C-alpha cells in the first residue's frame, strides 16, 4: 500500500495555512501507511546565490551551531540555522557540491535530506500523526507540499527508506507501489554515478529521475522516461520548486484522485484524504488517466 498526498495553493492568501490544511490529509492516509511518514514543503525561498539545506541527525540535541561555524569559516559567509526536532534548516551563500563535501568531512553521520532554494524534506519512522506533531507541521507556511505515508514492502522500516526522496535541487519523489526491475536498474544507475543508501525500490525511481534530470531532461521528459523504463506498479508525485507532477503506471494499479478549486489543486491516494479541504463539496474531482504526466504549478 502507501498513501500519497499533495497540495498546491493557487491562492497565495492561504500560504500561512498550508501546514494546517495539509496535516489532516497526511493523517487520513494512516491506514495506507502506518510505518513512516514524511513531507516536502516548499516556501521561504532564498535568493538565487544562496542554498537551503535540510539536515537530520539521530541525536535530537545535535549541536548544529558547531557545523554552522565550520561552514561559516569554510565559505566565509553567514549561515543561518533553524532547528526543528532532530532536523535543522541551514541557509548560506555557497554552492551545493563543496557544501556537501564539507558536511560529509565534518561528520558523516549527518544526513542531508534536501538541497534547494525552497524545499525542506522532513520524514521519520512512526505514525503520520506523530511525524506531523514532531515537526509541527500544522504551523508551517509555504506554497505547496507533498507527503507520503509508508507501508513498507521492498525494504525495512527506516528513516532512510521513508519518503519523500530528494532527486536533485528542489526536487523530490513520493511513490505508491512496487517496482520489479529495481535491482538491475540500480546497478545501471550506479555505473552512471548515482549513489544509493538503501535496498528500497522507490529510491531507485528517485535515482532514475535524478539521473534523467542531470542529463538535462525536463520533469515531464524524466517522468515520460520513467513510464518506459520502470517495470512495476506506481503512482508517483514529484515536487518541484514551482509545483507538483503526478503520473500513474499505464495499467493503473495504484489509485489517485485529484481535486481542484479556485484556491488549490490537491491530490491523494483516496478521496478520504481530500474530504477536510475547504470547498471540497464543490471542487472538480477526477482520477488522473494512467500513463499520462500531469503538472500543476507556476509557469
Amino acid at each position, binding site marked *: 500500500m502507501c498513501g500519497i498526498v499533495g497540495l498546491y495553493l493557487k491562492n497565495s492568501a492561504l500560504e500561512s495555512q498550508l501546514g494546517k490544511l495539509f496535516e489532516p490529509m497526511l493523517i487520513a492516509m494512516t491506514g495506507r501507511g502506518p510505518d513512516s511518514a514524511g513531507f516536502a514543503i516548499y516556501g521561504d525561498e532564498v535568493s538565487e546565490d544562496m542554498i537551503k539545506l535540510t539536515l537530520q541527525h539521530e541525536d535530537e540535541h545535535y549541536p548544529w551551531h558547531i557545523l554552522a561555524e565550520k561552514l561559516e569559516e569554510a565559505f566565509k559567509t553567514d549561515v543561518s540555522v533553524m532547528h526543528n526536532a532532530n532536523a535543522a534548516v541551514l541557509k548560506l551563500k555557497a554552492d551545493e557540491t563543496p557544501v556537501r563535501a564539507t558536511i560529509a568531512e565534518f561528520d558523516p553521520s549527518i544526513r542531508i535530506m534536501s538541497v534547494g532554494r525552497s524545499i525542506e524534506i522532513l520524514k521519520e519512522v512512526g505514525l503520520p500523526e506523530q511525524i506531523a506533531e514532531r515537526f509541527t507541521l500544522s504551523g508551517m507556511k509555504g506554497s505547496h507540499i507533498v507527503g507520503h505515508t509508508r507501508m513498507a514492502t521492498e525494504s525495512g522500516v527506516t528513516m532512510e527508506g521513508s519518503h519523500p526522496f530528494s532527486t536533485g535541487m528542489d526536487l523530490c519523489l513520493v511513490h505508491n507501489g512496487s517496482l520489479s526491475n529495481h535491482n538491475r536498474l540500480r546497478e545501471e544507475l550506479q555505473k552512471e554515478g548515482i549513489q544509493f543508501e538503501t535496498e528500497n525500490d522507490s529510491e531507485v525511481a528517485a535515482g532514475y529521475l535524478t539521473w534523467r534530470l542531470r542529463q538535462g531532461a525536463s520533469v515531464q521528459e524524466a517522468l515520460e522516461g520513467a513510464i518506459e523504463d520502470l517495470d512495476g506498479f506506481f503512482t508517483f508525485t514529484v515536487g518541484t520548486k514551482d509545483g507538483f507532477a503526478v503520473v500513474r503506471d499505464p495499467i*493503473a494499479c495504484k*489509485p489517485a484522485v485529484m481535486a481542484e478549486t479556485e484556491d488549490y489543486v490537491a491530490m491523494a491516494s*483516496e*478521496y478520504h*484524504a481530500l474530504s477536510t479541504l475547504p470547498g471540497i463539496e464543490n471542487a472538480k*474531482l*477526477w*482520477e488522473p488517466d494512467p500513463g499520462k504526466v500531469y503538472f500543476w504549478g507556476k509557469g
Partner: protein
Amino acid sequence: MKFDLKTQTVREVNQALHDLPKDKQAEVEINGISGDHNLAVGMDHPVKITLNGHAGYYCAGMNKEAEIIVNGNAGQGVAENMMSGKVHVKGNASQSAAATAHGGLLVVDGDAAARCGISMKGVNIVVKGSVGHMSAFMGQSGCLVVCGDAGEALGDSLYEAHLYVKGKVESLGADCIEKEMRAEHLEELSALLKEAGCDDNPEDFTRYGSGRQLYNFKVDNTSAY
C-alpha cells in the same frame, strides 16, 4: 431513518442496516460521508439506501435485493460481487465497478474507470459516460452498456457477456469482436437503457462479443483432460 457517519462508525451503520426488519421495505439516508470504505456492504433484503457524499472503496459490495443510491462519486469496486438489486452512482465510479457481480443492475451517471465489469457473471451495467481500459475483461454473462467511449482492450478474453458501446472503442481485447445487432439485442438494450433512465437510441450502439477463438472454446482441447 437517518445515519450520520460524523457521529457513527461504518461498522455501526452497516450493522444497523443488516438488523433492519427483513419483511418491510425501509428507506434509509446516510449523511456525513467523507470517502469511507465498505459503505452498505452485504445487504440482503429490499431496503432503499441513499448515500449523500462521495463513497470510498467497495461501496454496496455483495449487494442482494437492496436499492443503493450514491449522491456523489464511488471509489474502487462499487457493487463488487453484487447478486441482485440496484446500485445507482450519480457521479463517477473508480476502477473495477461491479467486478465479478452475478446479478442486479449498476447505473453510473458519469464515467467508470478501468476494469469496469471485470469478470462480470450476470450483472447488467449501464455507464452513461465512458469506461476505462480492460473493461469487461473475462466477462462471463450479463450486459455492459456504455453510452460514451470505451478504453483500450475492451472485452479481452470474453466469454458470453454482451457489450454495447455508443461511442468509439480505443481497441478491442483478445478475441473480442464486433457483432451484428439483431432484434433480440435491440430489445435487450432498449430495456436496459429505459431502466437506467437513458434516452439514447439503441440503434446508435454497436454490439461486441466473444469471437470464441480462444483455448476454452476449442472442442479439441477437451482431449487434454
